[in-house]
């Protein structure tokens, strides 16, 4: 029996050798089968020195450690849903070595002392924790937080996530000020008036279900606004969890004309669709039952209106999901970020309109991505770049599989699959509609900053 063992960043550096592993490093376009030697936490050249554990890793893939730009650790204030310990274990279990904690906690991360406190607490975590600080005090959209002090405390971006920085003038101030620090405004693109009352993506499925629709224009309105503000101020705008096709074209255009714009999408917006709210359980690229409005059989009572599918921004239409996937493939989208949003069951086992929005993603991101690869919609190296090297570069972290690099990597078995079950998850919460489904790709080892943070019986023997 394979024993899952979690480690922490405070553990001693790791030493081991994996023989015959397929090493993929998207940053150098490398994809070779070789031996991978890690000694004292550092990747070494050549043969494994004698006396260190040598593990036959044939058939496994080793890649740079995954980096999540958008994680809700629910700390402080909602530790029943997640803690730094449980959230970073979920990260390690999913192959992530870095998570960026979002500021919509209670109280919010709008104060340098609080940010320092969180980072200090995370020193023994199972993944590196970085902080996206609140862009405005109390995330109220009125007064900027002390961006400079927060950056000095370790903030790598600023966001009022959960909502957009709603007043345009405040968003403009933030972009202008942040330009002096070289850090991004991380925008949750949702125009509040247009999205008001929206419980899921507007369209035929929402109409069929009688649930308030959130129009695609709610995202586009903020994307267009912020691109104009970024162009004008010279600031860096990063759109997080983009969920519509409509926003992609203006981003491509703005980037071509020199605006500093980056963006991420979540795995669930690439693979799940609004049909999931009606009870469908097929990925966007599969042929599901595709509930024709007004036609066909009724909704599946086992899954229809499941509050676990309520997420913000809402699950996209199939066309939007496929457009987002294509935008990952062509590089328009810089990163896949999870928007890991844990909630306990009592916030989800309620009528759809009352369900807290959000679903967990750290442990399923790689699997969803590998499913897209298996279906032919992404190259494996593109997926790994979007999950590791590209987001890491955005926050100034190195990721390399070259000799001399600090070992920061994930080893997974692409041939095996696993069933998403509550007991299989390290997160304190299990709010994902993937529960009960099989995902490809089993993470066998995660090494963050030279330390083994997760080992599914690959190195250690129990």
């Amino acid at each position, binding site marked *: 029996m394979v024993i899952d063992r979690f480690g922490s960043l405070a553990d001693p550096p790791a030493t081991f050798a994996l023989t015959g592993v397929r090493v993929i490093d998207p940053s150098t376009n490398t994809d070779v089968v070789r031996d991978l030697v890690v000694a004292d936490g550092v990747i070494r050249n050549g043969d494994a020195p004698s006396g260190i554990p040598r593990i036959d890793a044939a058939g496994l893939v080793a890649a740079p450690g995954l980096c999540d730009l958008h994680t809700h650790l629910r700390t402080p204030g909602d530790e029943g849903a997640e803690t730094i310990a449980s959230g970073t274990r979920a990260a390690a279990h999913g192959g992530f070595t870095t998570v960026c904690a979002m500021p919509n906690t209670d109280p919010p991360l709008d104060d340098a002392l609080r940010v320092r406190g969180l980072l200090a607490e995370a020193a023994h975590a199972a993944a590196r924790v970085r902080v996206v600080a609140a862009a405005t005090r109390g995330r109220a959209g009125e007064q900027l937080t002390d961006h400079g002090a927060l950056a000095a405390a370790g903030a790598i971006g600023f966001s009022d996530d959960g909502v957009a920085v709603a007043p345009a003038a405040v968003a403009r101030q933030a972009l202008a000020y942040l330009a002096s620090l070289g850090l991004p405004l991380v925008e949750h693109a949702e125009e509040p008036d247009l999205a008001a009352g929206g419980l899921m993506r507007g369209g035929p499925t929402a*109409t069929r279900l*009688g649930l308030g629709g959130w129009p695609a224009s709610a995202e586009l309105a903020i994307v267009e606004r912020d691109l104009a503000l970024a162009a004008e101020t010279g600031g860096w705008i990063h759109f997080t969890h983009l969920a519509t096709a409509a926003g992609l074209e203006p981003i491509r255009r703005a980037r071509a004309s020199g605006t500093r714009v980056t963006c991420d999408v979540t795995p669930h917006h690439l693979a799940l669709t609004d049909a999931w709210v009606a009870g469908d359980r097929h990925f966007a690229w599969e042929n599901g039952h595709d509930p024709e*409005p007004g036609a066909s*059989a009724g909704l599946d009572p086992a899954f229809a209106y499941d509050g676990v599918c309520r997420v913000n921004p809402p699950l996209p239409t199939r066309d939007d999901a496929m457009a987002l996937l294509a935008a990952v493939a062509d590089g328009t989208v810089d990163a896949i970020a999870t928007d890991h949003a844990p909630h306990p069951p009592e916030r989800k086992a309620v*009528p*759809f309109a009352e369900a807290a929005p959000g679903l967990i993603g750290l442990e399923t991101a790689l699997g969803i991505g590998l499913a897209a690869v298996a279906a032919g919609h992404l190259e494996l190296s593109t997926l790994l770049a979007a999950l590791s090297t590209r987001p890491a570069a955005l926050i100034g972290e190195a990721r390399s599989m070259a000799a001399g690099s600090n070992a920061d990597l994930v080893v997974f078995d692409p041939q095996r699959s696993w069933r998403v079950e509550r007991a299989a998850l390290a997160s304190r919460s299990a709010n994902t509609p993937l529960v009960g489904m099989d995902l490809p790709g089993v993470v066998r080892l995660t090494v963050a900053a030279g330390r083994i943070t997760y080992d599914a019986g690959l190195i250690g023997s129990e």
Partner: protein
Amino acid sequence: MTATWISTWTRRHLLDVDELSRAELEAVLDLGVELRGRRAARELPDSLRGLAVGLAFYEPSTRTRVSFELAARELGATVTDLSVAGSSVAKGESLIDTLRTLERTGVRMVVLRHAASGAPYLAARSLERAAILNAGDGTHAHPTQALLDALTLREALGSLEGARVVIVGDAAHSRVARSDLHALVRLGASVVLSGPPAWVNPFAGWPGVSVVTDLATALSGADAVVALRVQRERAAGSGVPSLGEYVSRWGLTAEKLERACPGAWLMHPGPANEGVEIAAELSTDPRSLIGRQVENGVPIRMAVLSLLAVEMDRW
């Protein structure tokens, strides 16, 4: 009772009519007709004897609640009214907790009305033994209203096959409209939706449904017209500039009805705002089926309760 309907029914819950095949729909209507006759003759079966039925209305309702209660009692059930709306029963207690409590007291059928679309699906997933009858959920479905509308229209027209039915008003926020669409289309009718664009355009592309904003055009060739109740607070909000604008463009009057087929029928799920969605003079018009809709309420609910009770013995 005739046995044909028993063989076509295999459902534990009634959550919406969209799950029902044409044969099942016809079976419910046929059984409704039969039970209506037996009720008039005071020869009702006691097919629900020994069954406890719970009424859980999380939203105020008069006619739906009363007709379910009568239907269940007259078929021999014990009825308990949770009277949730406006009371303290549900305060701090989740919907699931409340329904599970009902179930533990022995209630085997729960008639549920809830302001949240989809609440009956959550309830159906959460209960082990009890059947859920959706008595209206949010802006999603109102299956028994659609069944009684279908029965009323089937009897007035002889058949729904090939009939052209116009539904006027705020279909986007109407559970009656949604369920009517499913039932009428499946029974062979074509449905035309008319109203302010925001209220009808979302249905464009539904099979069997066409959207015609202009009421006069929509009414052309109509065999029947269903006026939906206008929620006054909505009229001045998202969909239409003002209530007056709505009345002038989409309020049904005898004059506008001239565009429909001669003898076209008029329906309304009630309660109607006279002078808003329909002119006062129309409620007493001989073409009005509004009274018959109400009369069909109890027998249709009897039919549904009976079918679920039969099925209950199988699981």
